[in-house]
């Protein structure tokens, strides 16, 4: 998973200061930024100082806002937004196949995880979850379309059981999904989940247990559409994709990212909280692998604070700050755009654009993994319980690191256009539309710089745990 936390916010707030300070330092200590420092994959050294690398990234996003705001033809913006073609729905056979595939993958994961080899690179469980699912499948969700509802084996199993159909408590909204997502990422960070097949299988079974209990109590649709963190995560990523379900329920092809201008699915602060959590966990996951996090955490560990608490506190504080920052940018929009639209309404409408940023960041961190380890997954799957001793690893060409940096920048660029399109939809006056985006653009610039900073750090394992 992708990482970063507390100091995304530190980096955000301190960005202008840091740029100035680093500018002074840079002549003395020229840092070679490792652009595209995707874990264990690419090592492409950029020879500009880190501060310049970050400032350039921020400026690209800022400049793209200025360029986007030069497009003032409402009809044209609307045309790009609404362009679409109806696609034929997958047939019954395809749906049954997808479901069987999901169930088979879960079965192989559990069996291989419990009884197969205990080393990560030979374990079908580890490879299915981290390479097949987290890297490749999630990637396909935002590049093509979210197929998780068709594949989801947990939903199939939970749906096969009778349900008490208690009414889902409305005031909880999406907060259980937020808590679940944060909990999953927390567990991934503080435990050797990526290396220990038994532990990973335990988590998969635990998640299955929670899903079953949740859907038995509240009904399978209420549970998986509202409270289940994994379904919600893939649904959110799927909204970046070109293929999505339209309002009539049929599949529709759109220009990538344009589905993000629809905010009907965001009901209130809980759904905004979920979108921010998707962006945040990516950042947290990356941040805790950096040396700066080790320096921040060390004093607390040295005075005897348990590492698990330090990680948890960092996660909660970071998430709270991310959410506060986003809500503040929406409040700023109300002032700058000169409107009576409620701040909550502005926050709701602009929230989906953040998902483009999260998708870009996920791509940057997982493309290399997906490409290099997919052959290993294929070979291990031929015999999950006793895999062949040697398995191929694709040497990912250096250019993939460049794709990582491009994705970290491309996400926000798409987000800027989505915000532009949303603003034109919201405001009758085009000057209002431009001005309403100031706050969100600042947040996007800061976020991009924080992401680039993390991508430029050598990635390590989270310390102290």
């Amino acid at each position: 998973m992708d990482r970063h936390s507390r100091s995304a916010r530190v980096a955000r707030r301190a960005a202008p200061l840091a740029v100035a300070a680093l500018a002074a330092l840079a002549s003395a200590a020229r840092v070679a930024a490792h652009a595209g420092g995707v874990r264990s994959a690419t090592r492409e050294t950029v020879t500009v100082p880190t501060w310049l690398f970050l400032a350039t990234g921020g400026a690209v996003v800022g400049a793209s806002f200025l360029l986007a705001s030069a497009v003032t033809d409402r009809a044209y913006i609307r045309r790009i937004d609404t362009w679409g073609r109806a696609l034929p729905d997958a047939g019954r056979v395809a749906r049954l196949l997808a479901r069987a595939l999901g169930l088979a993958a879960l079965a192989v994961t559990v069996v291989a995880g419990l009884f197969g080899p205990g080393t990560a690179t030979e374990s079908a469980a580890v490879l299915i979850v981290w390479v097949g699912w987290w890297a490749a499948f999630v990637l396909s969700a935002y590049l093509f379309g979210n197929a998780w509802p068709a594949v989801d084996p947990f939903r199939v199993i939970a749906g096969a059981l009778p349900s008490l159909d208690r009414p889902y408590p409305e005031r909880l909204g999406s907060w259980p999904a937020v808590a679940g997502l944060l909990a999953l990422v927390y567990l991934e960070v503080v435990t050797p989940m990526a290396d220990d097949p038994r532990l990973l299988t335990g988590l998969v079974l635990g998640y299955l247990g929670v899903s079953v209990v949740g859907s038995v109590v509240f009904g399978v649709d209420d549970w998986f559409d509202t409270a289940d963190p994994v379904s919600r995560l893939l649904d959110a990523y799927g909204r970046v994709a070109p293929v999505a379900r339209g309002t009539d329920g049929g599949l529709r092809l759109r220009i990538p990212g344009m589905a993000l201008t629809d905010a009907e699915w965001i009901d209130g602060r809980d759904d905004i909280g979920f979108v921010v959590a998707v962006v945040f966990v990516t950042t947290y996951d990356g941040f805790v692998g950096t040396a700066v996090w080790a320096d921040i955490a060390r004093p607390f560990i040295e005075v005897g604070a348990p590492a698990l608490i330090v990680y948890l506190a960092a996660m909660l504080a970071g998430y709270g700050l991310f959410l506060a920052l986003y809500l503040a940018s929406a409040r700023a929009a109300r002032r700058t755009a000169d409107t009576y639209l409620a701040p909550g309404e502005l926050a709701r409408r602009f929230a989906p654009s953040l998902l483009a940023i999260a998708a870009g960041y996920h791509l940057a961190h997982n493309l290399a993994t997906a490409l290099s380890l997919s052959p290993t997954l294929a070979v291990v799957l031929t015999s999950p319980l006793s895999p062949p001793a040697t398995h191929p690893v694709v040497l990912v060409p250096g250019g993939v690191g460049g794709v990582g940096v491009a994705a970290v920048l491309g996400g926000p660029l798409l987000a800027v256009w989505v915000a532009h399109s949303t603003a034109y939809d919201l405001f009758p006056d085009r000057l209002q539309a431009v001005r309403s985006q100031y706050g969100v653009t600042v947040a996007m610039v800061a976020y991009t710089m924080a992401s680039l900073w993390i991508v430029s750090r050598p990635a390590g394992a989270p310390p102290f745990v």
Partner: protein
Amino acid sequence: MSRDDATADGSPHAGMPADATAATPLTESDPADDHYDVPSDATVVTCPRCGRPFVRERHRDLHLGQAHAGLGDDERAAYEAARDEEADELRRFRILSLGLLVVIYFGFLFLYAVAG
């Protein structure tokens, strides 16, 4: 506050300026979902058709032209005046942002020459 005007989804009116002639409504696609929060002491300009509150008359006039069909002569004139004013301000913004882009471009050119 939410509004419920059936006309918002109708085709825009013939004779509108060039970029407003598409077959779909051009703004505020789902009016029922809009929520407003008007301070009690604020001056409010309200849309006579749907009751939407606006801060400025110009916003209301533009909204009328974009979201409602069958404007009266006064409303049409107000809409066109508002569009002209909006266009002038947009032009100023464009020149400003072009200037800013030039500054960013040469600023970074300079930074790369010095530090890169």
